[in-house]
């Protein structure tokens, strides 16, 4: 035991030093406890108090995150390197707080969740927990933190999908999600245990990590890395780990779907960047390649773009179509990850930001239209453009942005990603990048076909059965309209962000 005694003071010191930087997360933990207590006293229909406490806590945490982001000059390593706070992590944290706030209001405005027998209180109390997981995911730079934060999000997401199980379809979606997620996380844990076995450390930035890997046979490293990528890929839902996503998106309540398609996916990209960092840094220092990510990530990107965009053409259910389209977007974003230059990361973050706004707003409008007219399929949207003019016009704007048409923010995002990839291609002339670029260009055209089915049905076709449909507009509609405006503003003046 005595050999450790000398170490204890330095360990404690590093923990003490880390705590001030951990303030946004400490606030979230406190909020989590408060929300549980509030939910006990105000159950069922009185859950609005629970929501109030939750939103207040998240807002305070967002405030501290912003302060931290402004004060940040160079990357900070906390708690012996298991957490790293840098500019990228700071942006992701602010973005996650925004997503969770919109998600909270989305739950509040969704009649199906509000009318549920149990009330939405338990769903609100998951919010600080999931935000804590997302924040940790953005910052984690140790294998333990990566596993812990991914599991944290997964468990909360299973609960969210299964929460209002009022139909066989929804319980089915929850079961598929939980089983698929469980298998993926077990595979990832095995990969992590192999990485630990090869290197003897859990900290990615520790020099022993890369040195240990470079001494191992390449095949062994490849197996371990691919096993870890399986776990990250489950969160990102790229091909071939995408099977759960259309089913879960269709089965889950709309607010939950909107959250699943944004929050965990963005966090997955944050963690993927962090996981790839040491490998690229090691290569840049003139060492031999330990594991060549280029072909693996490019193949994933190409197949995701093809499967996502082509499968979306045949979908009639709006949620399923958006699910496949989000797989396609993941493929496009993988291209930015493959580029991995400073411009590539910048383009990735800009696009993720826009993607989060677009998806949130699209799902809010889909929910509003479903509430007003009962239409869940694209073929039921016939003639709805006349009754739901505001909703439909905004929806179409968002879809145009998802396609990447000017003058919307989605177009700027695509331009940034394409320029970063072309720059990288002209300096390395790698075949993989060329293939990615070609596939991305073709699938962008393909995506026009399925996105434009919605305005085609809504505005150009008519239907008789729309007498007793009235759009119900509330605060949620206006939030989504504001989000749509943001897309337009940032599409015309991208200089405000880039």
């Amino acid at each position, binding site marked *: 035991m005595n*050999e*450790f005694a000398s*170490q204890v003071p330095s360990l404690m010191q590093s923990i003490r030093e880390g705590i001030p930087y951990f303030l946004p997360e400490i606030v979230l933990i406190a909020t989590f406890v408060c929300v549980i207590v509030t939910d006990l006293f105000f159950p069922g229909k009185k859950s609005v108090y629970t929501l109030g406490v939750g939103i207040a806590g998240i807002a305070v945490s967002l405030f501290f995150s912003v302060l931290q982001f402004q004060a940040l000059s160079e990357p900070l390593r906390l708690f*012996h390197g298991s957490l790293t706070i840098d500019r990228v992590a700071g942006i992701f944290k602010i973005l996650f707080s925004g997503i969770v706030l919109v998600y909270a209001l989305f739950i509040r405005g969704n009649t199906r969740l509000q009318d549920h027998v149990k009330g939405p209180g338990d769903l609100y109390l998951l919010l600080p927990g999931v935000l804590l997981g997302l924040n940790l995911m953005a910052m984690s730079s140790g*294998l*333990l933190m990566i*596993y*812990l934060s991914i*599991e944290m999000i*997964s*468990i909360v997401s*299973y*609960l969210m999908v*299964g929460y209002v*199980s009022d*139909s*066989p*379809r929804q*319980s*089915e*979606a*929850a*079961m*598929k999600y*939980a*089983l698929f997620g*469980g*298998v993926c*996380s*077990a*595979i990832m*844990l*095995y990969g*992590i*245990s*192999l990485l*630990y*076995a090869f290197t*003897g*450390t*859990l900290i990615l930035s520790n020099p022993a990590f890369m040195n240990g890997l470079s001494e191992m046979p390449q095949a062994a490293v490849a197996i371990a890395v691919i096993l870890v990528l399986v776990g990250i890929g489950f969160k990102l839902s790229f091909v071939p780990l995408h099977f759960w996503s*259309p*089913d879960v998106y*269709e*089965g889950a309540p709309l607010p939950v779907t909107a959250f699943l398609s944004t929050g965990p996916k963005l966090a997955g990209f944050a963690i993927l960047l962090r996981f790839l960092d040491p490998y690229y840094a090691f290569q840049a220092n003139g060492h031999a390649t330990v594991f060549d990510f280029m072909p693996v990530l490019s193949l994933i990107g190409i197949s995701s773009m093809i499967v996502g965009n082509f*499968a979306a053409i*045949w*979908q009639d259910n709006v949620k*399923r179509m958006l699910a496949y389209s989000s797989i396609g977007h993941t493929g496009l974003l993988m291209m930015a990850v493959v580029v991995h230059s400073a411009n590539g990361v910048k383009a990735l973050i800009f696009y993720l930001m826009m993607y989060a706004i677009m998806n949130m707003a699209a799902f809010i409008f889909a929910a509003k239209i479903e509430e007003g007219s009962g239409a869940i399929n694209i073929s039921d949207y016939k003639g709805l453009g006349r009754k739901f003019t505001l909703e439909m016009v905004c929806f179409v704007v968002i879809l145009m942005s998802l396609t990447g048409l000017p003058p919307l923010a989605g177009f700027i995002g695509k331009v940034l990603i394409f320029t970063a990839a072309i720059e990288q291609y002209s300096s390395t002339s790698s075949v993989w990048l060329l293939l990615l670029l070609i596939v991305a260009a073709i699938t962008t055209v393909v995506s026009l076909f399925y996105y434009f089915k919605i305005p085609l049905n809504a505005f150009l076709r008519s239907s008789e059965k729309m007498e007793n449909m009235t759009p119900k507009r509330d605060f949620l509609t206006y939030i989504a309209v504001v989000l749509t405006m943001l897309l337009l503003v940032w599409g015309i003046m991208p200089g405000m962000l880039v």
Partner: protein
Amino acid sequence: MIPLSHFMLISGLLFCIGLYAVLSKRNAIMILIGIEFMLNAAILNLVAFGKYDKQVMGGQMFALFAIVLAAATVAVSLAIILNVYTYHKNIDPTTIDQLRD
């Protein structure tokens, strides 16, 4: 003293048994048991290799966290499976397929 390769061999075997159970069983609870096998294979690896990491004890710590998280995941999954049973009177994931293309 048992050499490390024995631990790796056993953990590899456990992992494969778990994966086989996941892929072949037609009962959601059996699949959960398969997942548990895979998790324990990884935990065995972590603890065995923790021997070389005496100062930080990363592997041992990780094993503790992994055990707790595995329990949490199983608790949630069992609740979900119970829910599935009330609606479908059946927990065979291959026959429950209302959601599909």
